[in-house]
């Protein structure tokens, strides 16, 4: 991520039966445009989704996708260093960007009169990014500081370890921000290679939502973005993670006030038919205080102060992760035992009709909450287009969720939440050495 934000657009738990009129167009160079007019406020959310992320990297240059994301703000041919931000902010706009294992997303929010200026600046950096040695060194320090934020955080440290243990072959193994030694040694050549590999217009989806006219967006895209030449997208990721055949356990010893427990299960890629059943399973287990895990771990046994579940859209099979914050001074083994009992119960007994309906209602209400913001609409349209292959699946998502049966949720639990398929990460607090 380019900088920390209060708005977490995490883990797309959205969709529904509502129709959103979306106009589409594909430029001659292959860039696909999705536009939705929404005149609620005089603002625009303009998003670019490049289908390149840390899964396209190699050992020795891990983290370069994320580093590249930062470099996209450090000057191109027409607009030099700092100009992207200066021009945006002086005209009432704001931006951010984020990199995941699978994609790099650039997010611009601005008053609608700024649209043409934004198209010009985006085209400039997509086509003609400059690589100045001085900017590279300074930005390397910024990214290393971003990594240190993770190192100082129990959650960040444990998640990195969990992922690296759950994936031993596939590139999801390494952290998006990169290993420290790689951060120190990225070269200009690494950046240029990455640019040539991933930043093809034909590897990008652009979404505009807000106070715009679709024809105007298309006309401006033709003027500014269409001249960018197409080239080869990143080569396919060949490595397939071998099936996990036994529980993996990792432990992290770190000075901390409280222990932390994180359990990850391999789940299929986002466009699998079981996608929604898995999302609803996540709701039944950990969404709200009436969820099974909250009731058991926090409310009933009083072993933990929180339990959360997350998963993320992905091109390749990913992880469903549960994070439990046990109470300080308790043995996390007790939380793990109670957690496992609840998982085994849902696998053995399935879920009730009422739980299923609740999970669906939660899902739909969350969808509507998201859809009341142009930023979330732009993000979700892009996510469905990129990971489910068609933004129209956002339109039908509500119906697709409604179709899921209790048996399908139970089957998903039986298939994916088995002990052999999981990695358990535990942070055991250790006493800090006294400063001298």
């Amino acid at each position, binding site marked *: 991520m380019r900088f920390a934000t209060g708005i977490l657009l995490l883990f797309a738990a959205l969709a529904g039966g509502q129709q959103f009129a979306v106009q589409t167009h594909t430029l001659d160079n292959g860039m696909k445009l999705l536009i939705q007019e929404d005149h609620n406020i005089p*603002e625009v959310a303009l998003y670019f989704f490049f289908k390149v992320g840390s899964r396209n990297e190699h050992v020795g240059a891990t983290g370069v996708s994320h580093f590249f994301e930062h470099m996209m703000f450090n000057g191109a041919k027409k607009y030099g260093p700092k100009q992207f931000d200066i021009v945006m902010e002086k005209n009432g706009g*704001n931006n951010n960007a984020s990199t995941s294992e699978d994609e790099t997303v650039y997010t611009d929010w601005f008053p609608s009169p700024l649209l043409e200026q934004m198209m010009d600046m985006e085209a400039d950096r997509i086509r003609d990014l400059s690589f100045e040695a001085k900017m590279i060194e300074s930005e390397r320090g910024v990214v290393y500081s971003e990594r240190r934020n993770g190192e100082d955080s129990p959650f960040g440290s444990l998640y990195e370890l969990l992922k690296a243990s759950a994936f031993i072959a596939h590139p999801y193994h390494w952290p998006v921000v990169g290993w420290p030694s790689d951060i120190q040694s990225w070269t200009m050549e690494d950046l240029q290679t990455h640019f040539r590999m991933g930043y093809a217009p034909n590897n990008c989806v652009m979404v505009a939502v807000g106070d715009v006219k679709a024809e105007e967006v298309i006309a401006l895209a033709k003027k500014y973005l269409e001249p960018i030449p197409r080239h080869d997208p990143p080569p396919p990721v060949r490595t397939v993670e071998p099936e996990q055949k036994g529980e993996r356990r990792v432990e992290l010893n770190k000075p901390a006030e*409280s222990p932390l427990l994180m359990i990850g299960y391999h789940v299929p890629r986002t466009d699998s038919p079981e996608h929604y059943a898995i999302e609803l399973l996540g709701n039944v287990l950990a969404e709200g205080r009436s969820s099974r895990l909250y009731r058991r771990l*926090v409310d009933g046994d009083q072993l933990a102060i929180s339990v959360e579940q997350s998963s993320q859209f992905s091109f390749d099979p990913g992880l469903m992760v549960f994070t439990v914050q046990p109470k300080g001074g308790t043995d996390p083994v007790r939380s793990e035992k109670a957690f496992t009992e609840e998982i085994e119960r849902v696998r053995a007994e399935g879920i009730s009709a009422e739980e299923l309906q609740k999970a669906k209602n939660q899902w739909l209400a969350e969808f509507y909450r998201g859809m009341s913001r142009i930023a979330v609409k732009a993000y979700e349209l892009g996510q469905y287009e990129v990971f489910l292959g068609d933004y129209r699946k956002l339109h039908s998502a509500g119906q697709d969720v409604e179709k899921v049966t209790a048996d399908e949720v139970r089957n998903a639990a039986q298939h994916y939440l088995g002990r052999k398929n999981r990695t358990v990460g535990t942070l055991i607090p250790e006493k800090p050495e006294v400063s001298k």
Partner: protein
Amino acid sequence: MKRIIPFLLVAGLLPAQVHLPQYTREVLPNGVVLDLMPRQGTPLVSVLVLVKGGAESDPPEQAGLASLTAELLRRGTPTRTAEKFSEEIDFIGATFSTRADAQSTAIETEFMSKDTGRALDPISDAVLHPSFPDEEVKKALSEGIEASKASKDSLHEAAATYSQVFFFGPQHPYGRLAEGDEVSLKRIDRAAIAASHARLYVGSNLIVVAAGGFEPAEMRVRLAKAFGAVPAGQAYQWKKDRPAESGSGTRLLLVDKPDAVQTYFSIGNPGIYRTHPDRIPVWLVNTLFGGRFTSVLNEELRVNSGLTYGASSRAETNRLTGRISLFTYTQTATTVQAMDMALEVLKRFREKGISAEQLASAKAYLKGTYPTDHLETSDQLAATLGEIELFGLTRAEVDDLFARIDAVTLEQANRMARKYFGAGDLVFTLVGNAAQIHEGVKKYAPQMREIPIATPGYQAK
């Protein structure tokens, strides 16, 4: 060679003014303020209940009382157990969250329009008729204490918390934490919670705001019936403003976290309150100093030098005079370099001031980002309206905002930079590896205190 950038002329095309959508305001016979803002075409309803008082109403020894009282609302009434409440709310996909800030307790809820009837009953029951079962009080206290301890595992959060407590000092209402800490929470019991609810959750102390997709006449009947039945009671008596830790001079707190790989630090001085006449110019000037990505602070510490992932500043706008402070972090070895640089940026900002071009940029930025932050969704509109009521403002707060921004002059802005940024005694708070940085940071303050992060609670005693 420097290129000349052909900027398009767009600043003049920003909307001249934004407006708060229409709403009705009514004071029920028992004193409850009821605001209704119906919006066409949205399938969601946000209901916000504000209780005046918040953290400043907590007894000094029982910081966290208002927050804990709010947390317990959902955990049992004469007709509902905690489990039943959660089951009802979750079943319709509604949200129900509570928090206390410096001057109020907020109960924030959102649900689908079609579920209005099913949602309002448990929500009003929880807010108005909690029974505070002993077992739930015990659980909530234990969770609060554990959460406070665990908050020290996030060094960003810990640094922000330490800096607030240290800046205001134990005698000031803001020198105590709204959510309490492991020390203060242990002094709270069921009797204190029930008394706090009986005193504050009364008609003359409540603001109820609904925004979203609803039929206004029907919503009025429902909310007036539920909230109009509460005893009028007495409005909370606000505390008088007072300076932060008195007569204190420049001072520094170093919190030792021996395994930290970065130092997290803040530098602050007294600022303004929410309704202060300087508020708009201070907001503009803070935007330029550390309130956005191209601010001078972020530019120097992140963009030009790569010392940090982020550097920012904020001007607090609570009911009493708050802080203006900067916050950033850097690897342990560059702590002094980053602190020197932050102070240098502060000094230059005060002395050199800002240019007309910078001021114009900040004005456009605030106007451009305001709608997305305050006027887009039903919960944002409810929050905006609630804030207007809480601070005794009017809709002019939104409707005249852009005109007020436009009216700020360069001379006025530069006066604000001198008046509020780096003015007087500075208060430094650092969380990091003390053994590595202790010697280097001594020079910033004659009064330096050092405590291990493991010291219970957040008070630097």
